[in-house]
Each structure stands twice: as C-alpha cells, then as structure tokens.
C-alpha cells in the first residue's frame, strides 16, 4: 500500500482533540520535534546513497589512476543548490571510500565533470570522465525525489489531513473508532492504524455496468446503525463495516442526501444535481436549475441556501424562494459549516478556477445579503475536486488534487475563531 507513507501516524484531526494535560505532554512534543529535526538532514542525504554509490563505481571503472582526480559538479536540474550540495558530498564520500584521492583541477591527472540533469524519468547523473581528448561518459538514472512539504497557511480556516493516495478519491469519512472509510472510483476502502502504521484493512468493489462520468462525484454517508451508503451517479451502494467491510451496489436514480431531510437528484451521466430537490416525508419535489453544490444554513425562518449552479453562478436564495444576491468569483463547490465564530455559520466556497490551477477555500459570513470574506483563504496545491459538509455540520471534507505530486489529498476543514 503505497499511500501509507504519505499519511501521519495518527490523523491530525484526532490529535487536535487531545486535551492539554501537563507540562510532561509539552516536553514529549518538544522531544519529538527535536528528534525529527535532527534526523531530517541525514534522511535527506540518504536519498543520494544508492545513486552516488553507483555513479562512483562507474567513475572508478573509467579512471586510469585513483591518485589524482578532480571532481566538479554542475546542476542542470530543478533541484535547489542545497540538495545538489548534498549530492556532491555523497558522491565525494563514495569516491573516497573507493580509494580515490580528490584534488584540485590544476593538480589532477584526470577529471570527472559531473552534471546533475533531469529527464522525464527523474534525475540523471551524467559524468564525463577522462583527460585531454580522451573522455568517457557514464550515467546513472535516479527517480524523482519527494518534494519538500509546504506548510499550510491557515488563519481563519483550519485543515486537518485525513488521507492521501495516488488514486482519485470521491469522499472520505472518519469513523468513530479511528478508522477511515475512503470512497474511490471503483472501490470503497477501510483503513486503520495497525502496528503504528495506516494499513488497508479491507476493500469492497463498487459494481457498475455503465462507464462512470469523466468528472466522477460520489458521497459517503454513515448511518446511525454503523452501516454506510455510497452515492454515485446512477448507482447507490449499501454496506456494512462490521464484522467485515462489504458493499452491495445497484443501479439507482434515488436522490442523494444534501442535509437532514433534504435530498436532491443527481444526474446519472453527468457531474451535477439535476435541480429536483425532495424533502423527506413529502411526495413533492421542488425544482431549481441544475447545480453542483449547495450550502445550507438551517436557521429557521432566517434560513437560506447558497447554490452553485452549473451556469456558473453562485446565488443566495432566501426562505421565500427569492434570489437575494449573486456572488462573483465563486467556484462550483460550496458548503456550509457551523462554528463558534461570528454568526455561527460560515459558507465555504472554492475559487472560480479550472482543474489546471491552484484552488483556495474562502470562508464567508452572510451579512445584509452580502458575503463578507472572513480571514485568509486556505490555499491548496491544486484544484478542489470535492467538498461535502460533514455529518456534524461543523466541518467539511475537502478533497484536492495536488498538482505537484498528482496525489489526491483529503482534509477536514473547520473554522477557527480569532482570540
């Protein structure tokens, strides 16, 4: 399971909930950070071990004498100079380990001009070894190095990583017992921490007879009895987690749940809700225009919806069915979350960018029919592909595709009040 290495040992949202008990806890945290810091540099250097060893062996095989070799390292790759210096130190060490005496160029009998280049397979060491008119070329291919993590910049919104995997994710739900349920394109997977690592416990295939729409969407809903339902275009799956994970899928046009008691029909071959909305206990269905998402603010008579329609508009609709206002620059994903800040309700909205661009989530307070942005938008490393309000209404599950790594990253996003 490749994905496990991308994820923290304990989901960060669980760690945030841990109470502060004593100074002992702070000491442990400090110790952990200290150990992590002092171990980071050797870990980075280890990335070069295998390739520098292989390159050193090839260079040594082509030199006439080990007593006077000058080594120069040039960088043609996109790596920063600090990492190239690491590589150079690793190579020098490997050459010395093989009995090579490294000298300045004017004292050298032979030269090794090493270039760290880059190609579509990763990084390429290229060494030109020789002297005068006699030169050999040796090369060593190495894979792409893991990109340096960028610290998220959050002010009014906080995100806790839930899960990362190379394959697309449609929805992720944290289970009460610490497990994670991940809805993928073709399967639903259960992960748990075992032996201090996230492990795939079980996976159940999602049967479907027709090809999925290109921009596939799906939603996971946990039931009170511990079972779950997965909603996908034209398909619904019912399943259990205990005693073992299973999912039974069938073709279905039944509506998807938007909020308690509010359901909406989803197109079986597209990426949007058709606009038909059904209320629990009613045989009637209301009609909106087709929409991508809706943020609901259940405040009784003062309630309102913000709907992101497929025609590119995001509109505030009041309880009388009036379009109160249209918001500019909002993307197709909106969700409502409750918090202890401001009015107690915030609308989250993506940017109006396409999937080739970096996305961000902004939080808005609805004041006097206007959306007032609160705090700094929460930046993501790629487009947000899914956002659903969580069952508790106080957070939203956000899935973004990281354009640097290609992986899909799921977060739990909630509002943080300024103190």
């Amino acid at each position, binding site marked *: 399971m490749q994905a496990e290495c991308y994820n923290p040992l304990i989901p960060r949202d669980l760690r945030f909930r841990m109470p502060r008990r004593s100074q002992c806890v702070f000491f442990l945290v400090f110790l952990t950070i200290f150990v992590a810091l002092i171990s980071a540099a050797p870990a980075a250097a280890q990335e070069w071990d295998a390739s520098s060893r292989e390159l050193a062996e090839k260079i040594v095989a082509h030199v006439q004498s080990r007593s006077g070799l000058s080594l120069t390292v040039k960088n043609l790759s996109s790596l920063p100079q600090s990492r190239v210096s690491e590589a150079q130190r690793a190579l020098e060490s490997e050459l010395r380990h093989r009995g090579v005496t490294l000298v300045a160029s004017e004292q050298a009998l032979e030269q090794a001009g090493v270039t760290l280049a880059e190609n579509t397979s990763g990084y390429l060491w290229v060494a030109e070894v020789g002297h005068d008119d006699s030169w050999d070329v040796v090369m060593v291919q190495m894979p792409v190095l893991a990109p340096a993590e960028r610290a998220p910049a959050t002010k009014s919104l906080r995100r806790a990583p839930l899960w990362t995997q190379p394959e697309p994710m449609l929805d992720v739900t944290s289970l009460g017992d610490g497990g994670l349920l991940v809805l993928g394109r073709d399967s639903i997977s259960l992960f748990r921490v075992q032996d201090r690592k996230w492990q795939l416990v079980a996976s159940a295939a999602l049967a479907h007879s027709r090809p999925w729409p290109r*921009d596939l969407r799906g939603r996971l809903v946990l039931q009170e009895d511990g079972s779950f339902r997965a909603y996908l275009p034209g398909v619904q799956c019912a399943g259990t987690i205990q005693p073992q994970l299973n999912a039974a899928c069938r073709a279905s046009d039944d509506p998807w749940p938007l909020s308690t008691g509010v359901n909406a029909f989803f197109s079986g071959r597209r990426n949007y809700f058709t606009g038909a909305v059904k209320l629990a206990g009613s045989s009637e269905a209301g009609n909106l225009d087709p929409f991508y998402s809706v943020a609901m603010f259940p405040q009784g008579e003062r309630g309102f919806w913000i709907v992101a329609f497929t025609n590119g508009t995001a509109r505030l609709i009041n309880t009388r069915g009036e379009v109160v206002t249209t918001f*500019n620059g909002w993307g197709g994903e909106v969700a409502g979350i409750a918090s202890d800040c401001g009015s107690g309700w915030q609308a989250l909205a993506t940017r109006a960018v396409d999937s080739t661009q970096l996305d961000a989530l902004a939080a808005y307070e609805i004041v006097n029919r206007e959306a007032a942005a609160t705090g700094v938008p929460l930046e993501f490393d790629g487009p947000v592909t899914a956002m659903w309000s969580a069952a508790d209404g106080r957070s939203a599950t956000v899935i973004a595709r990281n354009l640097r790594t290609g992986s899909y990253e799921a977060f739990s996003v909630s509002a943080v009040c300024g103190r």
Partner: protein
Amino acid sequence: MRRSAYLLFAAASLLLALCPAAAESRPRYGGTLRLELSASPASLDPVQPSAFPTSAQQQLSALIFDRLVELDQRGMPQPGLAASWQHDPDYRRWLFHLRSGVLLHNGSPLLPHLVVMSLAASNPNWHVRLQGEEIVIESASPLPNLLAELACARNAIVVHTEAGTVVGTGPFRVSAWEPGKRLTLTANEDYWGGRPFLDSVEITFGRSQRDQALDLQLGRADVIEVALDQIRRAQQDGQRVVLSSPAELIALAFSDKPSVKDPALREAISLSIDRSAIQNTLLQKQGEAAAGLLPQWVSGYSFLFRVIAGVDRARQLRGDSGPAPSLTLAYDWSDPLARAIAERVSVNAHDAGVTIQPYGENLQARSANADLRVVRIPLASGDAAAALNSISAVFSRQGALPANSPEELYALDRVLRSDFRLIPIVYVPQAWALSPRVKNWVTPREGGWRLADVWLEEDKP
C-alpha cells in the same frame, strides 16, 4: 427548515434568470470547440510504419483512437485499453488483459483479435498473438520499455473496416471528415474513460496563421496555432497563449541521391548551420538549438552534444570532398518556419562553399527530387527510450536499434547522427492561443491535446 424549503422552491426557478452569470470551476458539459490548424492531413490513420506521423496526425489520433497503455503527466504507465499486464523476468514476453465492455465507434465490441491485428501491422518486429482472451507480445530481444512504446500514437488500436475506413474506441468519434479540409468529431457517449465534456469538436485544416489569428479575434475559433516568433506579440495583445516544452525536432534529412552521398559534404553542411542564430532570431529565443535528437528535458544528456558552428572546419571538409554540386532543399510550402529555416541554412551553407537552393513543396504531393528536406519530427513520447526508438525505426538504416538505459540512448543518438543523414537543427515547442471560454486546457510537455478533459464556459448573455 422544511417549510422554508417549500417556499424556497416556489419562486426560485423564475428568479434565477434575472442575475448575470459569474464563474464556475467544476467542468461543464456541452458546447462545440472550434480548432484551426495550418496542416492539412490527408488521412486519420496514425499507423504508418514507413513514415513518421506528423504532429497533427498524432494529435488527432489521441482523440479518435486509444492505446493499450497511456502515460500520465509524470510519464508513468496507466491502463488504457489494457486493464492490466504482466511480463516475464527478461521482458521478452508480455501479457495484456483487455478492458471489458469497450465498444468501437461503429457500436461493435472491441474484440481481442482486432487488437492483435492492429499491433501486428504497426510492429513487424514483434510477435503479437492471442492467448485465450489475452494479448501476447513477444520479441527476440528484451522489451523493457514496451509500456511507453505502446503509449505512442503509432501503436494506437486502429480497426480497418471493409469499407476502407478506420474506426477507433477513443473519446471522440468521427461524424464528418473532408480530408485536408475539415473534421467534425462528436463525444463518444459510451467512452470507457467517461464521456468528454464537449459535445463536439470542429477542426478546420489548412488555415494560414494569419487567418487563424483573425478568427480567434472575431470569436470564430477557440483554439489556434501561434507562430513562435509571434508569441511575445500575442501575449502583449492579451491573448491567452500556452506552450508545450520543446516537442518537435526540426532537422535536415538527406536523400539517397548521389549528389549527397559524400558524408564529408553532409558534415560540412551540419557544421555550417548557425543554430544559435536560428533559435535567437527566427524562434525569438523559444525552443532550443539541437545537436542531439532529443531535447534536454526528455533525455537529460543532450547538453553533452555541444552546438558548434564551425564554418572554417566546414570549408575544409568541403574542400576535401571535391567540387560541390548545387543542392536542392525542400520544405513544406505551408510552413513559414520551415521556409525561414531553409533559407537560413542556404545562407549558412553558402558561407561554407556549398550552394543550396531552397524551394517549397506540397507535402501531400512530395516528389523525390530534393537532395535534402527540412523535416519536422514530433516527439513520439515523453519517454526518452520510446521517443528515440521511434526516430530510430524511421531513420535508422540498420532498422530499429533498441536502447533503454540512458547510456544506450546516448550511444544510439550518436549512431543515428554519425553518417550526417539526419542533422538536428532546433527543438521547438507547440504554441496555442485559446479563447477565454476554453477551460481545463492542459498542454502536455510533449505536446498534443487532451480535449476529453476540456470544457467550455457558458456564453454570457
């Protein structure tokens, strides 16, 4: 909440149309993308073993035909028509399990034997056969790089019908085709990878770059080509311009005529070419001067091939090879860049004492009269081995010369150029200008289009 919701529905539909549109981020279905090209392809069949597919053929191929394997944006193999695969330890025998339920554009199922026929036709050196429902590819020499090879356009799965047409399984199906003039594609509703967001694509061929620019300006086109020397100006005019990495090699290819049989003469011509000047002036510093066959971003080693213009050495070689004949250099008359390069090559060669007369020719009615040609060789793949092996398959006199490791590729690159029958000049990117309503446009580094993911913003009222 429920009573509020009832009220909400009552008037919402009527009132929604009152406000202007704003923006959107999730892909929208519908619309026709209008694309213009200067090329005039006569065939949609990408599988032509004896000739290198043009950029246009490669691009069109990806819309209509699928391959067993695709490379993702990081160059990693992903399942295409093949759902899974396995190979023996020495990579001589591969087994591919086909994706089930795939339909050809004519509605008939894609049967395994059709895949076998298609691959066998484009790869005479492979032994392709059926084993039950699975496809077996075997070769006398190891094929460690087979997955990247299968992702090339020339390995598209093309089914020839009795009517003499070609049918594919790709995201778009052909609804109208006038060779060299116009192509209309419609979305494949049953595409295994999900129906494209666009309803259709209209491609007009043979449009001059000037006409294309005018059509974009007047809203008659959504995607046009941009000449490399016009990129800066287009950007200054506020146009949305996207570029690939250097993705097409412009080179000189020599004929077998006796007039150019002397390698010293060919080397002299190669040495006379001032590639840096071509890159700086004709290309306005786009692309890269080419001494090897692959661009640096693909090979990683191309910097080792120094771009050297040596007129003195060229003159010396010229003098050693006897009296120089007057040579003819052909270029595609519809390609302004090829013409400019041909003229520059002629001037450079003159400085070395070689007389070269450039002339334009119609690519479709090409004659065998020219001594040498300006050729455009699109990257067959972002994978170095697949890209170089594709060049080798067409231009090598010894047939395909398999190479896989960087050192083997470096050696093959040198071998392919050692007789100076193929002289690299520059690597150029593909450049496109897009109308504002085009969304999700991704330009792969190796060039081409990913139109199945493109969507169009709704026209504003």
